[in-house]
C-alpha cells in the first residue's frame, strides 16, 4: 500500500513541499508523568510490537535499564530522585523518554537523503529505512537527542509512534499497554483538553507549577508531557527547558546551503564571462624567438661560471 504525497506534511531533502490538500486529524500521545509508576510496560510493549530485542545489560546502581536509548530501545524510562526543597519530600520523577514527533522536526530538516524522514499529515515523524543513508545528520538535527544509528546496518532508528498501528486506527503499543493510563493517545486537541483536566487535578493536590509540556520552540510536539513541575522540565532527566533546532543547524541547512550554491555558481559564471571578454593570453612568435636568445645567453653564462 503506497501513500500519496498528499499524505505528507514534510519530506526530507526535497525541494518541494507536498501539496497541502489533505487534512488528517493530528494525533498526539500525552505522557502524564504524575501518573507514571515507571513499570516499563511501555518499554516491553515497544520491544515486543516492533519485534526488537535489546541485549541483556548489567545493573549500574540505578533502575534505568537499558542505560540509554539505542537502535533497538526506542523508548526508555528515566528515573530521577529529587528532594523537593519546598515540601522537603522526596519525589521520584520518572519520565518516559523517546521521540517527541515535533511539528518542526530538526531531524527532518537536517536529513540530506530524499524521503528518508517524512512527516505525515497526522503529525507522526517517521524514518524510512530504505532511504536512510546512515549519515547521522538527524542526530545533530534533533533537539532531544533521540535518533540512534545502528552499527549493524547503518540506518537511523527511533520511535515511529507506531505509525503501522495508527495507520489502521490503533493506539501505539506503549499507550495501549500503560497500566495506569499515564500514556494516553488521541487527536492533538483531545490530548490538550485531557491535559488541562490533569493539570487542574495536580494543582488541587498541591503542585502549583503543574503544567503541560508542548514546547513552542519546535512548533509544538505530538508527544507531550504533563509535569508536576512544568516550571523546571530539566528536573526530569534533563528534559530541555525551551528546545529548538540548534542555530548552527539552522545556519548550516539554511543560509550556507543556498549561499554556497550561489557563490560556486557565481565563480563559474565569472570564469565564463572572463573567458569570453578578456584578451587571449597566448605566447607570440616574438616571445618564442626572444626565448631562444635568452636561452643562449643564459646557457653561455652558465658555462662561464
Amino acid at each position, binding site marked *: *500500500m*503506497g*501513500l*500519496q*504525497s498528499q*499524505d*505528507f506534511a514534510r*519530506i*526530507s*531533502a*526535497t*525541494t*518541494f513541499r507536498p501539496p497541502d490538500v489533505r487534512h488528517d486529524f493530528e494525533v498526539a500521545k500525552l505522557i502524564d508523568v504524575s501518573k507514571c509508576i515507571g*513499570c*516499563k*510496560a511501555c*518499554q*516491553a*510493549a515497544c*520491544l*515486543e*510490537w516492533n*519485534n526488537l530485542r535489546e541485549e541483556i545489560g548489567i545493573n549500574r546502581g540505578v533502575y534505568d535499564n537499558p542505560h540509554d536509548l539505542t537502535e533497538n530501545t526506542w523508548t526508555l524510562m528515566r528515573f530521577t530522585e529529587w528532594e523537593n526543597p519546598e515540601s522537603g519530600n522526596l519525589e521520584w520523577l520518572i519520565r518516559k523518554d523517546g521521540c517527541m514527533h515535533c511539528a518542526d522536526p530538526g531531524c527532518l530538516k537536517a536529513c540530506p*537523503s*530524499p*524521503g*528518508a524522514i*517524512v512527516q*505525515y499529515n497526522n503529525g507522526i515523524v*517517521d524514518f*524510512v529505512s*530504505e*532511504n536512510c543513508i546512515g549519515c547521522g545528520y538527524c542526530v545533530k538535527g534533533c533537539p532531544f537527542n533521540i535518533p540512534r544509528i545502528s552499527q549493524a546496518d547503518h540506518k537511523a532508528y527511533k520511535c*515511529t509512534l507506531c*505509525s*503501522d*498501528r495508527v*495507520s*489502521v486506527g490503533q493506539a501505539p*503499543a506503549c499507550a*495501549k*499497554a*500503560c*497500566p495506569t*493510563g499515564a500514556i494516553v493517545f488521541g487527536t492533538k486537541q483531545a490530548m490538550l483538553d485531557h491535559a488541562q483536566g490533569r493539570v487542574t487535578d495536580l494543582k488541587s493536590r498541591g503542585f502549583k507549577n503543574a503544567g503541560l509540556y508542548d514546547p513552542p520552540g519546535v512548533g509544538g510536539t505530538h508527544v507531550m508531557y504533563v509535569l508536576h513541575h512544568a516550571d523546571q522540565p530539566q528536573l526530569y532527566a534533563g528534559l530541555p527547558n525551551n528546545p529548538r533546532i540548534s542555530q548552527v543547524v539552522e545556519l548550516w541547512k539554511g543560509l550556507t546551503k543556498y549561499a554556497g550554491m550561489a557563490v560556486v555558481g557565481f565563480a563559474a559564471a565569472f570564469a565564463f564571462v572572463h573567458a569570453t571578454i578578456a584578451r587571449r593570453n597566448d605566447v607570440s612568435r616574438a616571445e618564442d624567438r626572444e626565448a631562444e636568445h635568452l636561452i643562449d645567453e643564459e646557457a653561455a653564462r652558465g658555462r662561464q661560471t
Partner: protein
Amino acid sequence: MLHELSRRQFLKAAGAGVAGSAVAALGFGGAEEALAQAVRPFKLARTTETRNTCPYCSVACGVIMYGLGDKSKNAHPAIIHIEGDPDHPTNRGTLCPKGAALLDFVHSETRTKVPQYRGPGEKAFRQISWNEALDRIARLMKDDRDKNFVAKNQDGVTVNRWLTTGFLAASATTNETAFLTYKVVRSLGVLAFDNQARV
C-alpha cells in the same frame, strides 16, 4: 500518478529538464520510494485471535494471543504476538511489563521440551521417554507407599495416611488441573500437600 507527480516536481527543482533521463539513470529515486514505502505493514492482519488470561499475578488480565494460521488442517498454529484484551473489565487492554512480554515466555529458550532424568550421583540430565519416566515414577511411588503407608495410628484409629512422599502444587495451573491433582494425590493418602499460597 504519484510517480509522475514527484518526478516532475523533482526535475523542476533540479532545474535540469533535459538532463532528466540522465538524472534518472544516475539512480535518483528517493522521494517516490518514500511515498511508497513509508509505513510498516500492520503485522496482525488475518492472524487468529485467542482469548486467554495472563498467568502471572492475580489481577488476571485478559490477553489476546495472535496466532499464525487460520486453524485450517495443515496450518500449524504458533503465537506471534500477545496484547491486552480491551473488553476485559479489569485491565481494559492494558498490560504490565510482564504481561506485555508474555510472547517471550511462551517461546522462551529455557522452556522444558522433553522429559529428562538424572540418576544418583550423575552430573547431567539425559532425555528419556514419557513411558520410561512415568513407569519409573509410578513404581517409586508405589514401593514407597506400600512400605510406609500408615493405616492405623498407635491408638488403633484408622488414619490411612502416607507421609513419606509429598506434593507441592502449582500456583498457576487451572482449577481443573488442580482438582484432578487433588483427586489423584488425596486418593493416595498424601498429607504433605501444599501450594504456593505463602510464597
